[in-house]
Each structure stands twice: as C-alpha cells, then as structure tokens.
C-alpha cells in the first residue's frame, strides 16, 4: 500500500474541501469494504484518503415532504432495520441477499453506488477497460462474467452496484456535494453512472471533490409494488451473475406503469423500456412476465463466452416481476 494522507472531516463542507485537492488524487473512505482491496493492489493510488464516517449529517433516514432522504453512510443492516424503508421491498431484498456479516455491518449505500467493477482484468492490473497495449483483452478473453448490453464501446465490464437497479426503478436521486464546499446538486440516479470511453473517465459522473451524501427516494405509493431478483451462484458472499429490479404501478391488477432495471449486465445499471412496453396494460402472470423478460433481452449483444447471461437476465426480469406481484414460487 502506498503512503497517503488520512483526513477525517466532521461536515460535508469539510469533506468537499479535503477531497478537492491533489488534482483529484483523493479517495473517499466509507465502509472500506472494497477500498482497501484497491489500495493494496495499487489499483487506486490516492494521495489523500478522506474518511467520511464521522459526518453525522450523512447517517440515518429522514422523512421529507415527498419521500425519504437516506444518508450515504446507511449500512446494509440499517436498510433492513429502518422502518422508513420498510415499503421499499426491492431494496431490502438486495440487502438481505448480501450473505456476509462484515459487508452488511460495514458496507454503505453510498459506497455501493461508487463501487469500481469486479472485472478480473481490471482487478489484475489491466486498467478499467481491461486493455493491454490499447487492445481489449475482454473481447477474445475470459468474458463470461462481462456485459451483454452497452458493450459495443471499450467498456465491457459490468457495474458492480447491487442497489442501483432497485433505486433507479424507484426513481431515486442522488445528492452530490462539491467540488465547492457549498455546492449541492440532486441528480436522477440513472444519470449518475457513466460508460467510460477511456480508463481515466471512471464509472460515475463524480468529479474530483464531489461525493454522494444522500439518496432521495419518492414516497412509496400504495399501488406500487417492487422486487429484485439476483442470480447468485453461491449462498455465501457472492456477486450476482445477473439481476433485475422492478417497480410496478397497478390499478385493479393491471400494470399502469413500470420501471425495470438490470444489474450486472452492462457497464451501468441498464433500464429496459422494451420490457415495460411489453407489460403495460396487462396483468402480471407467468406468461406476461416471461414476455417482458423476452422483450428485455431481445436486443442483448453477448460476447463470445456469455450468451448464458442473456438467459439469466431474461429470468431475472421474469422473476422480479412475479416476485413483485407476489406470484414467485420457488423451491
């Protein structure tokens, strides 16, 4: 691990000021569940690490007039125990599927949104895009875990965030602080993620000096049902091979509107409007859910070794919808 400065601000403004230094060679430390791995492997080499854990304003969930404001330091366990989040089933289901006490205790919602990819080329030192001398290693290499959507550019990895699909389906926004100490913006979460064209671009819109302080969620309406379905190979700590989250607004059992978002199939969370179009105006049944799944993957562009992920994505959509409708029967 390279030497770095350590800073522990108490306010959001202090954090922004501390991060806006060293030409952006700074890093945010929240739960630290992945940052230490990255530091040990020299995959990130910040000159200053800013530990935001002591910023009280970023903890807890508070009701606001049109929804709830969730602090970025909210842990996975907090999500499960917070009464104000009880109606956001799709979010709780993600937290519940992280089968590691350490990650549930320490991992934060904000940290999840900012995770760097688990792509093994990136983690083995071939850069964010998995390249060697400018050539993609992924295209002809071991790409079984890589993207099946949004993979025509140089980025082939899949977004590592597990909560973003559920949050985007709910219409969540992120509150971003910085780079100036008093600068605050609220951005729809779907615009937060970036498919980089170069390794330097990163995976989010965050600029040096910026960080996520809160996530805003709209009030959970009584006629909206939500669910997430993650395909996990192992019962222990594992990353999904594919996932889908759905928020479905119904009236008299008929879908009026919906939002369906994939995880782990593209360099960003991936909204499927084709799936929604297939579903609106219908009741959620085994066959309409299957049709929505089929529509969702119709335009997938699998790589040489990950055709099977198309089937996983199709199933994730189908099962997320059935789960939202209370109709998922699993052994």
């Amino acid at each position, binding site marked *: 691990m390279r030497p770095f400065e350590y800073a522990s601000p108490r306010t959001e403004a202090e954090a922004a000021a501390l991060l806006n230094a060293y030409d952006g060679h700074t890093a945010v430390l929240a739960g630290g569940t992945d940052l230490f791995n990255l530091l040990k492997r020299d995959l990130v080499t910040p000159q200053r690490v800013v530990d935001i854990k002591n910023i009280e304003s970023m903890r807890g969930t508070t009701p606001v007039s049109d929804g709830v404001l969730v602090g970025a330091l909210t842990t996975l366990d907090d999500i499960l125990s917070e009464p104000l989040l009880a109606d956001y089933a799709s979010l709780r289901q993600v937290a519940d599927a992280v089968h590691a006490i350490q990650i549930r205790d320490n991992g934060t919602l904000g940290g999840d949104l900012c995770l760097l990819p688990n792509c093994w080329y990136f983690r083995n030192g071939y850069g964010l895009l998995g390249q060697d001398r400018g050539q993609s290693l992924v295209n002809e290499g071991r790409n079984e875990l890589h993207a099946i959507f949004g993979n025509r550019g140089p980025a082939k990895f899949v977004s590592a965030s597990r909560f973003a699909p559920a949050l985007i389906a709910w219409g969540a926004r992120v509150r971003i602080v910085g780079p100036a100490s008093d600068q605050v913006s609220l951005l729809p979460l779907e615009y937060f993620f970036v498919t980089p064209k170069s390794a330097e671009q990163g995976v989010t819109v965050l600029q040096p000096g910026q960080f996520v302080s809160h996530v805003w969620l709209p009030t959970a309406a009584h006629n909206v049902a939500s669910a997430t379905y993650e395909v996990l190979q192992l019962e*222990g700590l594992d990353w999904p091979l594919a996932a889908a989250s759905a928020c479905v607004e119904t009236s008299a059992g008929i879908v009026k509107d919906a939002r369906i978002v994939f995880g782990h199939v593209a360099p960003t969370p991936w909204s499927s409007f084709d799936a929604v179009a297939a579903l609106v105006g219908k009741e959620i049944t085994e066959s309409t859910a299957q049709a929505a799944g089929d529509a969702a993957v119709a335009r997938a562009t699998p790589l040489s070794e990950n055709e099977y992920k198309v*089937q996983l994505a199709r199933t994730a959509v189908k099962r997320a919808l059935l789960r939202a409708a209370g109709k998922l*029967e699993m052994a």
Partner: protein
Amino acid sequence: MATERKHAWGPRKDNVLIGKSIQRIDGVGKASGAAKFSADINTKGTLFAKLLTCKLGHAKVKSLDAEPAKKIPGVKGVHLFKKVGDEIRWDGELIVAVAAETEDQAEDGVKAIKVEYETLEHFVDEADLAGGEKAGRNKPAGENKKGDVEAALKTAKVVHKGHYGIATISHMCLEPHGSHCEFAGDQLTAHLSTQNVSGTPGQFAEGMLMDAKNVTVIGNYEGGGFGSKFAIGEWGLACAKMAKELGRPVRLMLDRATELKVAGTRPSGFIDVTIAADADGKIVAWDSHHWGTAGIGGGGVALGQIPYVYDFENQSRRQTGIGCNVGPNQAWRAPPHPQACALSQVAIDDIAAKLGKDSYDVFLKNLPSTGAKAGVYEEEMKIAAKEIDWKAKWHPHGQSPDKGPIKRGLGMAMHKWGGGPGACNCNVKVHPDGSVETFLGSQDLGTGTRTVIAIVLAETFGLPLSSVKVNLGSSKYPNSAGSGGSITVGGVSGAHRRAAQDALWKIFDLVAEKYKVSADNLAAKGGNILNGKDVVCTWKQACGLVGPMPLEVAGKGPVQDGLTNNSVGGVQMVDLSVDTETGLIRIHKFVSVQDCGLIIDELTAKSQVLGGLIMGITYALSEERIMDNKTGRYINADLQNYKLARIGDIGELVAIMYQPDSEYDRGVVGLGEPPVISPGAAISNAVANATGVRVPVLPLTPKRVLDALKGGRA
C-alpha cells in the same frame, strides 16, 4: 508365561473409547487461538518476507534490479529466485523475496524492484487438444489395451459415445505454504506448514549445504495440505537462506494469489469415450482417449485408474498430456481418483440411460468387474439407496415429475482407495506416576491424528484421555512418514497399540510378581489393574513398580499383524435440484456410505467424510482454476472469483460409516482420501437425471449448465 502374547485389538464390545465419538483433544486450542500455526510464529526480531512474482504466462527475464528494494526503510535483505536470462514458465513464478521489519515495508520493497521481461508465446488452454497439437505441446502419456474392444463393440446391444471433463483446481490451503526460520548459531529451527515433519530437515540441509542434524522442523498444527505440503518449496529454502544471511528470524508465507498459482494444483482431464453394453446392462467394451495437463511437462490424470472403479474385459485407453504454461501440480486428496471417477462413471450412467435402465441397476450389474470389493459395494449401495429413498425418488433421466423450471434428480458414484498404514516410529513413556506420553515425528493435519493416538493409548492402558499426552510435530522425535495417501491413522494407531501393549505386558509381569497373580488374567480398566473382576491395584500403584525412571517402549509400524489393513470402497448418492432457467444447482441431501475397517474415533472419521463431501461438492459445482488465453494468466486467483462452497451450498450431508463386525475385524484403514472421490460423478449424474441433459465438464457452473441445456440432449 502360559499364553502367547499377540498384538491385537480388544473385543469390540469391551471398548470404552475406541469406536466412540470423541472430540478432538486440540479442538479448544485451535478454536481459542492457543494452538500456534507456522503463520502465527513471531519470535523476537522476526522479519517478514514478501514476494515479487511474474505476472506473465511465459517470458524471459530481460533485466532485474533488486537494489532499489534495499533502499526502502525497514528492508533488510532480498533473495533472488531468478536472474537475467532465466525463463518464466507460468504466471506466478517467484522472482524476488524481500525481508523487512514489517509486512508493509516488505511490500514496499517488492514494489521498488525493477524488472523487465521479454514476452514469449504461451499456451494455457488445457482442454484444447487440437490447439495443443498445433502448438507442439502434446505428448503421448501412455496407452493400454486388453481383450478385443472392436469385436465387443460389434456385438453390443448399445454403444454410447460421450465427452466429459473436469477442470483443474488448486489446493487452496487455508494456511498458505510457508515457514518461519530462525538460526541459533549453526542450528536452524523451521516452523514449517508441512505434511512431512520427519522428511523435511534433509530438504533444508541439502539446500542450505548444512548438516541435517542441525535442522529442527516443527509442525505442530497445519492449516490444510491436501497433498501439496511434502516439500519445503523454493520459498521455504529462501526463508532459511535469508534467516541465515540476515542473522534474524524470517517468516515467509505465500500470499493468497501465489498460493493458488504455484503451491499446487490437481490436474485436469478431458475424455472421449466409447462405451458398450449388452441388453442386461453388462458393460462389454470401453475405449477412451483422455487428455489434460499437470503443468509445463504435460502429464495429467494417469490412465491406470480409468475406467473407474471397474475393470472391464475389453478395454482400450490412451492418454495425452498437454504441456501448458501453468503452475505445477501436486498430489491432491486421492490422486487421481476424483478425476478418474468423474471421467468414467458419467459414461456408465449415460449408457444406463441409453439402455432405458435405472443407473443403480447398471452400477450393480457390473460390480463383478470391481474385484474383491464387489460384496461391500453391494451392501453399501443398499444402505445408501435406502437412506436417499432411491427406489421411490428415481425417475428416468429427464422425466422429472416437477412441473416448473426446477427439476429434481438422483445420482450415484462409487470409489476405492488403499489406505494401508504408513511408517511410524514412536516412543511411549509410562511415568512412575501413571501418566503417559508419546513422541513421534508425525503431524496432525487437522484430521485428528493427536486424538486418535491418545484414544489408542488411553484405551490400551484403561485410562481417561486426560492421562495421555501426545507429542508430535518435531523432527527430533522418532521418524514417521509424511501424511498423504490416508496412511497416517493406520501407521500411528498400529505403532501405538504395539508399544502400549508391550508396555502393559511389562507392567502386568511386575504386578503379577508383586501381587502373586497370573499375568495372563490381568486387564487394565478404569484406572485399575484387574484380575478377572477383582482390583489388584491401581494403575498408579502398578506404574510405581517400574522404578524411578519412566518405562520407555518403542513402537513400530507397519507390521503385518492384523492391527491394520488396507483397501476401502465407498458409495455416494445425491438428491439435488437444477433450476433450468438459471443453471443453478442446489444439493438437498448427500449420502456417503463408507467402509474403513476399525474406526478409532467415529466423530473424527465422520468429520473426514463430511470434509471430503464439502470439497467434492465444491469442485463439482463451482471451484476451478480459470486460465486466460489472452494473457496466459490465472485470472481468478482470489477468494472472490475462485468460488468455494459455503455452508448454505452443501445441503444435508449424511455420513454413514459401514461398520459390521467384519470391518472391525479388518483392523484400522485410512479414510482421508476416499470420501472426496465420488461427488463429481454423483452430482453430474444427478444433474443428468434431473434434466435429461449431460453437462459434460465439471464444475457445473450456471454457464455450463445453461449452455448444455441449450444444446439439448446429450
């Protein structure tokens, strides 16, 4: 003496400890941290070493400058494994070790080293026979024929052609390979994570150009070896050399990625099989060609065990090794039986399906060609089938009654192993106060060796376990064989029973003389010496007759005296579900019926079986080395992507020890390897039963399952 004294186990019904379920005597120490592993040793002044490894599949060292490492604060020394011009043959080869005051400083030292490579062409696709041929990497690795395969194929009722495979896995010891080495004058003490305490001082001595008498290897506790910890390794020698050169203790344990890459792998195997049977399900011909890699030299799964466990009248086998730029293999638990089983018994299951027969009946029908174990297999099959409810639950392949996407299926496989006793010398001391201890240069890999020895001594002397102390794990104790091949339990229990009986007879003679009773009628039970039902004296009083010095008796083995034996069978059956929409497999119940002669401790015996099943389920479902053709690298050498089963992945495990009196009468036989052999084939067969599709290559990942389902019936 009227009666001839013969070493033997007592009547089964009289045993107080032997055959009972007894917790490991070192369990609390391990759970509490009091037990110190090599990775825990941190004597005053210890330096910590870290490794620079090459991250290319095949290369040549163009330049190497380790001097910058020495300028890093805290760095005390470096050791070069390679020099300019040397060839790098696989990802993870060791280049330089750096020793420093702290691990972080050693890491910083590693990062400061300047090294350049000339990249050479690599070949790492071990499944690609044609590619290996094209790259000039293929080497014939033997062939063997008997009977008339062609004639048998012509007259057979059905002929099945299949392709199957099993990926390479790494040993993945929880405690990585490594040691703590310390010199006092010319005396080297090495705390070594090893399966081979008595056999490793010579390895240090040879590499260090010193006398073996000046080397002490200590290995009190091992965090797993599985066959990969017999040699000290180049890292072990480097640790000793740095300790000598720097005049400070040095600890060098492999990091996780290097452990996976270079410390040992189990070879892969891929096979094309033609198998034929008559109308009754009797297999009449086997014709196979298999290939794979054990590393740069080719090799792979030795053909002698194929077809496993059967030896058919007409069979032809051929093997090709593919030299790949991958880390070297080491013996992995029951080499090469797990692969041979996974490459053979899937074909037997497939031909049963083709005949329209229950797999159970075809395995049963062919038992005569398994040899002497046929009767035991038949009994074990009955027990396993009853436990898993085979007759009620089995259905023809692909005809699961389940309506939804989740299909349930049953599969079975069977195995064999030797497990005869290894060499063991021990020195048993009976102290005048009645306490007992033993010394032997063996090791406890976590399997319960200490506990088994204590049980044998305590049972023989009629004492509680707490009266016995087992001293092992030092090369200064009497020589014992390395622990591999399931030879330890037989070796140590035989030698200790002999020594203990010899000691007991001496004590009986002293008691007989003193108390004027016949030595022939004496027994040691419950802390007393009994004459029939009468207490003659206490154990302590008896030991007092020995004099002021302890009674010291040497135990030896192996001896062909009936205390130990070899050869075990074993049958396993699994009930699982396949989610045909995701390719995920869930184990419901896994039944193992295992014979192993006389059981010393049923709890540790069952632990061996459960551990074997967990490892087996893991390599069947998720565990594999993934080599990247583009970079030539072991791309998943980390604990996230090298996927190991957790408790939620293994289902209900049922370990049934096959224990009729005929097994007790055989004496002690080793058990470590056999339970890990069958899970691959059993699980593959159950998936074929559930889905009607053979997923050809293990592990059965969602990708392989879905790809196979998409391809349709095998």
